[in-house]
């Protein structure tokens, strides 16, 4: 055994000293640097020819100790850290954290702020799904939709930049509401995006959905049943792709989602294709929500009265939202001081990634990449 045991995988104890020609099984290491896995994910495959016999994920390459950092920052100072979890959907994370602290404080956010939050969060869901679409399709081999998706995502990032100055890690919301009001021209720009993006999403559909190569690569690939999803604790589009009608925006509405009329797309077969269709349809529904929220944006204050130094009462809350990746939850423990006692992030990507073994076992090597893409993981969230 070499000194550098850190880089040796536990699975190699299974076939010590054999060359690949001796045994039928090949141990293949994928990552952590890889053009395909979304971030620093290491996947160790045991292959029998093309078939995957076993799969093991090694994570932790992006572990930054965010939960530990939270114990040494004040409640408001921790806001920017939360963006860095799922960095493709920073606004969503911010919403989850702010809602959790507001519940702990017992603060009610003004209606205008809630609507603004919904608009920005749904825009962020669109942006996150576009990143997913581009990279997932690129992994399967189609190089063009990536550029279309990122081109259209630019419009949304421009809105974020005008709103809060940052494109990706936005720190958009504050505890109690929003820091900035909608800028002049916000409604027009957002409605313009809604009008433009609908036909463009249909463009992606024409390029990908009907393509028979796409269908062959994604149908019956990475199938997971509804029961398995619930047993693994999987949430989000993966759960909905397996046929379970579950969306926290409808079932446990937060931040005025109950005011809006939208549908929840459900899949049937639980395969990659159904999850793809669910996410694309979710983009359409997000556009609906944004349009309703923008047209219904009323006047009013944008932030509630919150003390200068936030000191919530002693207690714990668990608040979760429907982030683009799944159920993002914040479990906050307060001991009455200005800094959190414990912040636990319930990361949807971490919990969804556990199902990789179940979904990929028995499939072919080329499908593993497709399945990682369809789980839509972001390593910032997996590792925190």
């Amino acid at each position, binding site marked *: 055994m070499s000194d550098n045991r850190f880089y040796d995988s536990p699975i190699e104890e299974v076939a010590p000293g054999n060359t690949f020609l001796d045994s039928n099984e090949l141990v293949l290491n994928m990552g952590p640097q890889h053009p395909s896995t979304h971030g620093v994910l290491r996947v160790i495959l045991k292959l029998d020819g093309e078939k995957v016999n076993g799969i093991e994920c090694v994570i932790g390459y992006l572990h930054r*100790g965010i939960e530990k950092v939270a114990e040494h920052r004040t409640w408001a100072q921790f806001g920017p850290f939360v963006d860095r979890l799922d960095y493709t959907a920073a606004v969503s994370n911010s919403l989850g954290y702010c809602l959790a602290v507001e519940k702990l404080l017992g603060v009610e956010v003004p209606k205008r702020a809630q609507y603004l939050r919904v608009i920005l969060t749904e825009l962020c869901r669109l942006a996150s799904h576009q990143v997913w679409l581009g990279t997932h399709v690129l992994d399967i081999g189609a190089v063009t939709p990536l550029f279309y998706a990122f081109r259209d995502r630019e419009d949304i990032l421009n809105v974020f930049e005008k709103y809060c100055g940052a494109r990706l890690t936005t720190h958009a919301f504050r505890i109690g509401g929003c820091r900035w009001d909608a800028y002049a021209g916000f409604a027009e720009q957002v409605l313009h995006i809604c009008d433009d993006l609908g036909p463009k999403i249909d463009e992606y559909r024409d390029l990908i959905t009907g393509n028979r190569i796409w269908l062959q690569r994604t149908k019956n690939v990475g199938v997971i049943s509804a029961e398995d999803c619930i047993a693994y604790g999987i949430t989000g589009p993966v759960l909905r792709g397996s046929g379970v009608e579950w969306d926290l925006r409808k079932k446990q509405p937060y931040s005025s989602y109950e005011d809006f009329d939208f549908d929840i797309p459900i899949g049937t077969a639980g395969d990659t294709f159904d999850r793809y269709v669910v996410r694309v349809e979710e983009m359409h529904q997000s556009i609906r929500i944004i349009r309703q929220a923008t047209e219904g944006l009323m006047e009013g204050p944008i932030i509630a009265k919150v003390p200068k130094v936030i000191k919530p009462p002693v207690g714990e809350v668990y608040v979760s939202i429907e982030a683009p990746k799944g159920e993002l939850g914040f479990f906050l423990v307060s001991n009455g001081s200005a800094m959190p006692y414990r912040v636990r992030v319930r990361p949807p990507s971490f919990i969804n990634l556990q199902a990789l073994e179940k979904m990929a076992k028995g499939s072919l090597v080329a499908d593993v990449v497709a399945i990682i893409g369809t789980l839509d993981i972001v390593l910032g969230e997996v590792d925190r």
Partner: protein
Amino acid sequence: MPEVPDGNPPNPVPAQAATTPAAAPAAAPKPVPQPWDCELVQQLKNSYGSGIHDAATFAGQNYLVVDRAVCHDVLLYLYQQLGYTSLTDLTAVHYPKDELPFEMVWILFSMAANERVRVKARFADEESAPTVTDRWVGANWMEREVYDMFGIRFTGHPDLRRILMPDEWTGHPLRKDYDPHKQDEVWVRKNLGIESGQ
């Protein structure tokens, strides 16, 4: 070189006060724990008696504080009899000054009833907690993370090893006695070839 903190909290940034002229909605009263009594709690108390130390509601969220001897049974009971089929989260909190310093928290969820319940149990240092991977497969990685971060072992876990930290790391980072700037110098020197803290 990063500054070594002197133990005082950094200057808190003042939270934004209300900025608009219109009156912000009056602050709702701060939540306090209320006792929670309902059929579910009655059933549990009937089955486990003194094992259920407390049942309360805080900020509209129900939680149960149970004894560590019965916590596994309570979780199974909630799963089988009362329909809480989903394990949303599994984590721990460290209270170093308490007699039983580690508090395990399980957050269960019932899709049918659209209800969440938190189950908490206290454990001593060096004590093992029961695993729930026999019921919820998804608890596997969550328990590994709790072991990695807090050092709580789980009896019956199929594959208990570190998940986020390197395999040979010593120390459990999320414990309160683990300084935020601390690193395992031996591991860093051996594997990265540099001195810790560079």
